[in-house]
């Protein structure tokens, strides 16, 4: 990737301090959660269904604001920053959607390139080449110029995962990344993510997954979320 023209702040620490969240008064999803996200590690956010795992991931990517408490990034209260103030950190946090998340009036290629072009992160020729290469790796180069509605759900999901990966965030948050993907794509994606981690381009990964094998294979820490509480439980069992 060419010269990075917009300042990006490497994430050194990520802390939730007495964080609470509710979608409406009286229905508390998270309550008084205090924890340090292991920066540089892999964290599997797990627990019984509907206990707020996805909400917690959205909070880690600053897609939802806590209704109580604070989120500190590099010991700075990030949850109270404006969009502009938080931008250098935001570009370091990649988020992959469980469903949706692609701009429907843009082609797959444009969806992949948009953040780079908007923030002038890459030269357009270099970026087009990069997008083509990654599309060839996952064998969808012939569908790059199609819009999301014209391709399969699995491919849409793949593109929502590849888009943040192309930005090389140091902190990657993935909401159930492998559901809906075929086994071969899953393997390729898995090796790509591990490769990026080995190169230290992606340092921290937080994810939810219904797959039980993947967290073990990655040696992920388990973050158990239940009844509004979140607790780090060491390596995935």
């Amino acid at each position, binding site marked *: 990737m060419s010269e990075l*023209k*917009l*300042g990006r702040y490497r994430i050194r620490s990520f802390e939730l301090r007495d964080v609470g969240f509710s979608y409406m008064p009286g229905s508390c999803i998270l309550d008084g959660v205090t924890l340090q996200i292991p920066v540089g590690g892999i964290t599997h956010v797990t627990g019984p269904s509907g206990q707020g795992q996805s909400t917690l991931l959205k909070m880690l*990517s*600053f*897609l939802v604001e806590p209704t109580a408490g604070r989120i500190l990034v590099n010991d700075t209260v990030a949850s109270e920053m404006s*969009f*502009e103030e938080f*931008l250098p950190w*935001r*570009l370091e*946090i*990649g*988020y992959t*959607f469980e*469903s*949706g*998340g*692609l*701009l*429907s009036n843009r082609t797959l290629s444009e969806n992949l390139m*948009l*953040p780079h*072009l*908007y*923030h*002038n992160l890459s030269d357009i020729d270099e970026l087009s080449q990069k997008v083509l290469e990654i599309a060839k790796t996952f064998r969808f180069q012939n569908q790059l110029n199609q819009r999301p509605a014209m391709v399969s759900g699995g491919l849409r999901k793949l593109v*929502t995962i590849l*888009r*943040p990966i192309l*930005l090389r965030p140091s902190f990657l948050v993935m909401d159930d990344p492998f559901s809906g993907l075929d086994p071969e794509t899953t393997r390729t994606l898995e090796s790509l993510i591990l490769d990026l981690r080995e190169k230290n381009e992606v340092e921290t990964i937080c994810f939810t997954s219904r797959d039980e094998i993947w967290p073990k294979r990655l040696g992920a820490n388990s973050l158990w979320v239940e009844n509004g509480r979140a607790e780090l439980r060491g390596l995935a069992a």
Partner: protein
Amino acid sequence: MSDEMTILLQQADAVGARIFEFFRYLGSLGLLVYLSFRATIFGSTEGHTHVKKYGLRQVFSVVSAQIYFTGWQALPMITVLALAAGGIAILQSSAQLSLFGGTGMLGSILVITIVREMGPLITALIVIARSGAAVASEIGNMRVHREIEALEVMGINPLSYIVFPRVAGGVISVVCLAFYFNAISLVGGFFVSRAIHDLPFSFYFESLANAFVIEDIILFFVKNGFSGLMIFALACHQGLSVKLSSHEVPQVTTKAVVHSIIAVTSFNVVVSVIFYVKQLVRMGIL
């Protein structure tokens, strides 16, 4: 306290609450527009002017798309309606004017009915029907499909990428469409007056030129600029109010259309009343 007094106070309270809610709604619309302009002009890449240039390029590509959909694609419909409006205005007034030999007033009639009143209103109504509804449902669907969230995680402020281009493109489109409507109406009016009264073009043009006053230009920009601003601010506001359920999309679309019609019509009436009161004062009648 008597029952009547309690009921009266409750009614006053309800009226007060509605008035408060109305001003809160207006305030949130104003804030939406202000923040979208601020985010675009001073915003997301503050201190990175070379980056801002690229961000703005992306934003202005959306502005031009909005002008294309709202302005350019509405031209055929506007043309037909403008020709009809100009023609009908002349046709209806001709019957009366012929009785008094007042064909010299044709210009005044066209300026008053078309340029000052019907032009802004018809243009706004067409834009509401075509684009206001479309923008509200588009943004509503973007919320449902998490496209707004996707922009946020990419570090793209939805206010500058979604709201600003639609409001800016909308205002430009409405002003240009209204200008086009007026021009075509006046052409339509000429053809009808030529057919009925066999008026030469110079007479028609002179009649129009005498009827125009400098305030017409101010009135034109105030009415059409406000219409564009309100239609697209309301459409964006309603679209963004969708929480994450697709059944909300038609509801917010209907609200955007109804609120826009009320806002545009009320504003046009108020501005026209102020304009005519001012004219009456100038003429010494009031």
